């Protein structure tokens, strides 16, 4: 009997030491919706794995580092179908994963954040650009790697003002998100001294995005829609819903550039971005996913890299420790944007340069030269600390 017991203890010890040599497992969940949205341009149609593909690359990057630090990262993906309970799905995902990357609409994200608050799961908002998630509806357990509408609008506005294209013709779609982006653009114009000479609304009357003879019709509609405008330098379009924005470039009544949701577009990332060592990451991404990297991919990559950065610095996979480090004053992450990215401690928004792209090239990167700030020039983009309505809890 004693012998048997001794044997058991011996076995127990052996098992413990074997476990100690095993790498620490760090589970990351990815929560998104099953449907993909439709875009006007066929080349911009998002892939089914848009976003999660970036997370997957960052898991690989973290695991390469993990070989040296004794940490192993895994990714579990969950897609919500229409009508499914998002809080329930998130809770199930949180069973094995202390960190969850979310690509969800604002309301769903808030439901998830509140459902997981007691568990201590750390959420990364990689998809939603809504201001209110960082302002009145901010949450202490949600870090935002996606930029906000105001950041995107400010990034574009700084460039337009730098270019001295300060008279804007603002064209707004009829959906809620379009109006929110228009709000952000109006705020930008006021902040940086641009003038909106006139606003027009483009009503979405329904209809297919793809038809066999669409071009002929559009070519007649768009000049008519933009004629008789007061003198302006640039047409700024707010059409997040992808109803008409892409039809405007080269078709305006007056020969003017287009910017905003079409033409020159502000984005956190682009397939054409190759500065600051980005080419290596673009190559790695292409090799892994057989397609080019989108802004959503980058926002998810950054979130998973933030986790990897914090686990290697703290030498721990403990969610509390990692969260404290990410939210602490010493945290920064490198993300191929020429500068370290840090968190705004008042609302957990990631500070980041914004690229201005035309679908083929990176035209510029904001903040622009001359837009100064006492803390970080990146805080010239979006709502700054004194304006913030966020109270983290």
């Amino acid at each position, binding site marked *: 009997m004693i012998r048997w017991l001794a044997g058991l203890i011996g076995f127990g010890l052996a098992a413990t030491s074997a476990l100690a040599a095993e790498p620490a497992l760090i589970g990351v969940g990815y929560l998104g919706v099953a449907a993909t949205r439709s875009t006007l341009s066929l080349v911009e149609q998002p892939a089914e794995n848009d976003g999660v593909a970036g997370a997957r690359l960052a898991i690989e*990057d973290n695991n390469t580092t993990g070989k*040296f630090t004794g940490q192993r990262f895994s990714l579990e993906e969950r897609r919500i179908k229409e009508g499914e309970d998002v809080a329930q799905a998130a809770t199930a995902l949180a069973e094995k994963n202390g960190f969850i990357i979310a690509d969800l609409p604002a309301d769903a994200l808030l439901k998830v954040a509140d459902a997981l608050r007691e568990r201590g799961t750390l959420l990364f908002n990689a998809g939603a650009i809504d201001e209110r998630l960082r302002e009145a509806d901010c949450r202490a357990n949600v870090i935002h790697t996606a930029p906000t509408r105001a950041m995107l609008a400010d990034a574009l506005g700084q460039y337009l003002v730098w270019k001295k294209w300060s008279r804007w013709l603002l064209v707004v779609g009829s959906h809620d998100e379009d109006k929110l982006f228009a709000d952000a653009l109006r705020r930008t114009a006021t902040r940086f001294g641009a003038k909106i000479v006139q606003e027009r609304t483009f009503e979405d009357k329904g209809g297919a995005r793809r038809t066999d003879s669409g071009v002929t019709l559009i070519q007649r509609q768009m000049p008519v829609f933009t004629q008789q405008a007061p003198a302006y330098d640039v047409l700024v379009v707010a059409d997040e819903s992808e109803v008409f924005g892409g039809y405007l470039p080269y078709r305006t009544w007056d020969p003017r550039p287009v910017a905003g949701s079409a033409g020159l577009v502000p984005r956190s990332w682009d397939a054409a971005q190759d500065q600051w060592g980005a080419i290596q990451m673009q*190559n790695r991404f292409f090799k892994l996913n057989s397609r080019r990297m989108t802004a959503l991919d980058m926002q998810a990559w950054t979130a998973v890299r933030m986790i990897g950065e914090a686990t290697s610095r703290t030498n721990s996979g403990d969610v509390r420790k990692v969260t404290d480090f990410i939210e602490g004053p010493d945290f920064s992450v*490198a993300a191929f944007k*020429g500068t370290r990215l840090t968190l705004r401690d008042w609302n957990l928004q990631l500070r980041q340069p914004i690229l201005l792209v035309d679908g083929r090239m990176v035209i510029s990167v904001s903040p622009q030269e001359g837009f100064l700030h006492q803390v970080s020039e990146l805080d010239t983009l979006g709502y700054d600390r004194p304006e913030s309505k966020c109270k983290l809890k």
Partner: protein
Amino acid sequence: MLRMWRVGLFSVLTLAAAPAHAFIAYVSNEKSNTVSVIDTDSWTVTKTIRVGQRPRGIDFTRDGKFVMVAVGDDDTIQVIDAKTQTVVDSLPSGPDPELFAQDAAGKILYVANENDNTVTVIDLEKRARLGDIQVGVEPEGMTISPDGKTLINTSETTNMAHFIDTSSRQIVANVLVDARPRFAEFKHDSSEVWVSSEIGGTVSIIDPRKHEVIGKVTFEIPGLRKEAIQPVGIGMTRDDKTAFIALGPANRIAVVDVATRKVTKYLLVGQRVWHMAFTPDEKYLLTTNGVSNDVSVIDVAAQKVIKTIQVGELPWGVTIAP
């Protein structure tokens, strides 16, 4: 007659090739796909050599006969004959070579391949690939300890300095440093390795025996935001007293007192300063300034910038004939 003329020409050439105290510097121009040759006597560009795509890491062979330049987008290292100043050969470097280091004898070359997380080992005489060492994500900085036993490689996204035993080609230690480590430099007495972190904005000082960070050099420039301070290239004087650190878009070289690890002076150079090289007599230090497309010449003793030389587009690395 013809013979006499030939002899005459020969002696002129010989004289021209060896003026007193003049050295020849080679600068890789990342965007122009060229290498600029600078004469340090006249401080002028004497020749521009067309090379492969995206030339970055550049170094003389130990015998001074050839210049090796990593042309990343052509996945090779080209070899320039220093006599004829033309590309004569290429090395099997592995994909996207950026920086490399050679052993003291000049026989083995270690190349950082950014695209596939490896360091490639090349036999320089046979021009053959001997093997690969798996390292972290985006290997970049490379240096060898003065005794030749340890190779240091930094990986930019893993944020580590990997210590590799050159005889077994195994990693023996990994030291975490600040974000995006770009360059590593040993003190000549082997007591410390200095590693620059471009995004972290610091230089970590590592004890190569204990494999621990024992100190950090930090930078503060009045009127300049912290994000603009991005240390990359490091040069250390042979007496190990003074280090020069290139601060990228801060457009400055920091002069650091090695003993106290404190910056004593900032020298304003061209825009986005990346790498540097001393003349063999250590009188001058040449720095490559990417955005202003020029090379600054620093008088090392006076700690002053004395000259600026226009080169090709986006000058990246520089090496000077031994």
